[in-house]
């Protein structure tokens, strides 16, 4: 079998890449190792309306399982800061449906799909890739002009192409989540975020409301934790009896969240998109928006490269350049902020809950640091950390 573009992985990055490449008229095949696209999820399923608008994505209404007005943030002592406003509005998706819908959109544009099909290796010969895949029908070799690694944190495409995709344990959240039913006293119009060294060291815990259930999870940096992520989550549920007294799990999920992007994103005839290239917001760990955005940018470059029959690394590098133009500076600031936040003690969080408004926190997530620095350097206990991590 021979295709223009072989995409490994049918998550949001892979299927949007497939949709775009098929729309340009290229011969596209997506291979997905799982028997069912979309599950089990490794995700809290949130995305903002603002993000969807920027991606020009009009969701199929069945993908939407929750509508969100904003976020409620809780300090370790349960001091609450509310974030709301147009920019904070969003949805909690049902990933099982969302990903199948994205695949169906790609198929409508002409993409081919193979499920329960695992890529097991690839080699480069005569300026094309030969990718071995294995499925119900045995082992096949697929020749492709370009291979797109949309294969998640466990990306093999990157490694096969000689790219370094090995995450550092200090930049990689250990995530765990129960989807639960039967919660009490939770405002279903907001996502709820809980901070504290004992709640989720170097990370946070979350409750995201869905139609008749909630995603309840947390992410930690395991190296700086005293227990497994699973134990922190059990403790969180135990300590919030008012919410979870009658709650029961209907699903359990885990995952690694790559919160620092470092990988070279292209090689000869190869591009990495989404989690495979650690394209995740380093502050909140959200990945759907950046995954889709990366595929939008990558597909434009791949289309041009195929049309010019130049699949060289130099040509494909345009994708990485465009990505960096949009994100490099912002990411640097967000990484600084992350380093700062990771070093806060519980009493510092209490202080921040006192001095920050909802809109301040939104501005922070947008990498606007100057006003924040002005605010925190007035607080002696935060001055040292601010000087060390926030001020150049």
């Amino acid at each position, binding site marked *: 079998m021979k295709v223009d573009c072989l995409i490994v992985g049918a998550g949001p990055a892979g299927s949007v890449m497939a949709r775009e490449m098929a729309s340009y008229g290229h011969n596209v095949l997506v291979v997905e190792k799982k028997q069912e696209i979309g599950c089990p999820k490794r995700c809290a399923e949130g995305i903002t309306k603002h993000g969807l608008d920027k991606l020009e994505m009009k969701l199929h209404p069945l993908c939407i399982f929750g509508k969100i007005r904003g976020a409620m943030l809780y300090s370790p002592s349960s001091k609450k800061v509310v974030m709301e406003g147009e920019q904070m509005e969003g949805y909690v998706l049902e990933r099982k449906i969302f990903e199948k819908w994205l695949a169906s959109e790609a198929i409508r544009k002409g993409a081919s799909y193979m499920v329960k099909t695992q890529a097991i290796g690839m080699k480069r010969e005569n300026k094309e890739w030969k990718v071995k895949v294995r499925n119900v029908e045995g082992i096949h070799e697929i020749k492709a002009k370009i291979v797109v690694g949309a294969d998640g944190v466990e*990306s093999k495409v990157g490694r096969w192409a000689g790219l370094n995709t090995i995450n550092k344990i200090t930049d990689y959240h250990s995530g765990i989540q129960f989807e639960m039913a039967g919660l009490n006293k939770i405002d279903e119009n907001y996502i709820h975020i809980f901070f504290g060294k004992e709640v989720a060291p170097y990370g946070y815990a979350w409750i995201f409301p869905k139609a008749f259930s909630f995603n309840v999870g947390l992410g930690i940096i395991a190296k700086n934790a005293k227990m497994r992520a*699973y134990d922190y989550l059990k403790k969180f549920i135990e300590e919030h009896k008012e919410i979870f007294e009658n709650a029961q799990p209907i699903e359990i999920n885990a995952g690694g969240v790559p919160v620092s992007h470092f990988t070279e994103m292209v090689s000869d005839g190869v591009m990495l998109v989404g989690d495979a290239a650690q394209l995740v917001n380093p502050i909140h760990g959200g990945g759907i928006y950046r995954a889709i955005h990366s595929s939008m940018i990558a597909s434009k470059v791949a289309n041009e490269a195929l049309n010019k029959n130049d699949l060289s690394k130099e040509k494909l590098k345009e994708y990485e350049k465009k990505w960096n133009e949009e994100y490099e500076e912002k990411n640097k600031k967000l990484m600084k902020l992350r380093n700062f936040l990771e070093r806060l003690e519980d009493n510092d969080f209490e202080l921040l809950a006192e001095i920050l408004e909802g809109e301040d926190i939104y501005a922070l997530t947008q990498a606007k640091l100057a006003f924040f620095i002005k605010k925190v350097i007035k607080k002696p206990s935060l001055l040292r950390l601010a000087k060390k991590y926030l001020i150049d």
Partner: protein
Amino acid sequence: MVRINYDACLYCGGCVGICPVDAITLYEVRIEINEKCVNCGNCVEFCPVGALVME
């Protein structure tokens, strides 16, 4: 060496992403660790449910 507790593993593939020697592969619902493993313990430290155990 690293032992896999398949009863606990949620096949999230997170361990694959921090393996420095590419010794772990996720096959849909089953992880496998091959002979390249250098017992660095990264995967054991990361695993959200403790499904990987150093023995």
